């Protein structure tokens, strides 16, 4: 149904370490992620899950170690690396005074627009059909989260980096997003996420890292 991602990509972490407020959150973290694979980060609150995600997408520099995209230092690649990732953080990243349609149009303009899924189809897929022109402020927290999730669909980002994507979603919403994951992995994409929800992946290879075990 969806066009597959043509190239295969690899994300490699070698010896990643993070220090926050003079506390070593994790150190010597190694993993390799290829197309079709997902990485789920687990761990107690404050074990550094969000910090690790922010390092992986390049917002934060690692205090130790190196992150490689296609064998090259991701932080040095800059925008070249950023065009391959879609990041969904704690905060949705929507402008509340704009409609979902306007929000997604900007997201599309900032990344690489996907040829096979348009904005309206993406909104339909996250269950916001008919809400295109309602100011995002007037939507419920779950619906606002869905607008942010629709952003994943409209850009050609091979690597999804998601911080608690299921926050404020209802059961149906969670199922929808799981379906999106399966499709994303099936077409050769990759994903790194933190979640307290038990995920049921039908597709792809899933790695897990528990950061609490590394807490020092």
């Amino acid at each position, binding site marked *: 149904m969806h*066009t597959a991602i043509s190239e295969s990509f690899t994300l490699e972490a070698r010896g990643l370490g993070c220090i926050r407020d003079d506390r070593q959150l994790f150190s010597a973290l190694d993993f390799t992620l290829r197309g079709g694979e997902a990485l789920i980060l687990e761990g107690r609150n404050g074990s550094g899950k969000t910090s690790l995600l*922010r390092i992986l*997408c*390049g*917002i*934060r*520099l690692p205090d130790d170690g190196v992150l490689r995209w296609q064998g090259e230092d991701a932080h040095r690649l800059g*925008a070249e690396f*950023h*065009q391959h*990732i879609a*990041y969904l*953080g*704690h*905060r*949705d*990243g*929507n*402008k*509340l*005074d*704009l409609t979902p349609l*306007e929000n997604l*149009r*900007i*997201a*599309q*303009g*900032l*990344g*690489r*627009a*996907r*040829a*096979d899924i348009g904005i309206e189809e993406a909104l339909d897929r996250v269950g916001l059909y008919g809400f295109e022109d309602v100011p995002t402020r007037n939507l419920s927290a779950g619906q606002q989260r869905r607008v942010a999730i629709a952003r994943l669909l409209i*850009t*050609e980002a091979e690597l999804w980096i998601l911080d608690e994507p299921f926050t404020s979603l209802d059961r149906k919403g969670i199922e929808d997003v799981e379906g999106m994951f399966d499709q994303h992995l099936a077409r050769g994409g990759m994903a790194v996420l933190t979640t307290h929800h038990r995920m049921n992946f039908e597709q792809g290879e899933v790695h897990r890292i528990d950061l609490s075990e590394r807490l020092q």
Partner: protein
Amino acid sequence: MKPSKLSLGSAFWLLLKRDLVLAMRRRSEFINPILFFILVCALFPLAIGSDPNLIRKIAPGVIWVAALLASLLTLDSLFRGDFEDGTLEQYVLSAHPVSILVIAKVIAHWLITGLPLILVAPLLGVLLSLPAGATGILVLTLALGTPVLSLIGSVGVALTVGLRRGGVLLSLLVLPLYVPVLIFATDAVNTAVTGIPVTAQLSIIGAMLFLALALAPLATAASLRVSLS
């Protein structure tokens, strides 16, 4: 089918247009500074009496200080909202160079907060009994100077946006850098009152504008990264 990346120019327009649309939906944000500017300038003659010579003498300084403070008042809104709702992260992670997107945001911010100041300045010139020739120069200095204020300010805001109460720090960071603009601009208008040509002062403010245009976006982009991490 290959994914299509929007050209840098279109992404620039998209962001510029977005900020203008947002401003139209929250009008109070850009009515506030202009109101402040007019009120300060209108209160001065009331406070110091009706001697037209005295008022004419202090008019350039009053108008410029009010414009500077009005622009300082609005600075924080440049990135604060985007920082709080997470859209700033999305820009920094976009497929385009952040420094170019920063220019789009600063231009939008200037159109919303700086341009209205320039438009009402002639009226305030009349109010403070500036001669017509000097009013023209006043408008020119504002047209060249307020973008410099926005550009320099963007670096300061980018550095302080991650702090919960960055307001005081922002003023301390940015005001010293505003001083040269203030000195040359008010000097130009004062000199114009006496009828002497002011091309030298205008050229210097113009040079500041180009210098700020070249350097500030790079510094702002780097500062945003620091603030986010």
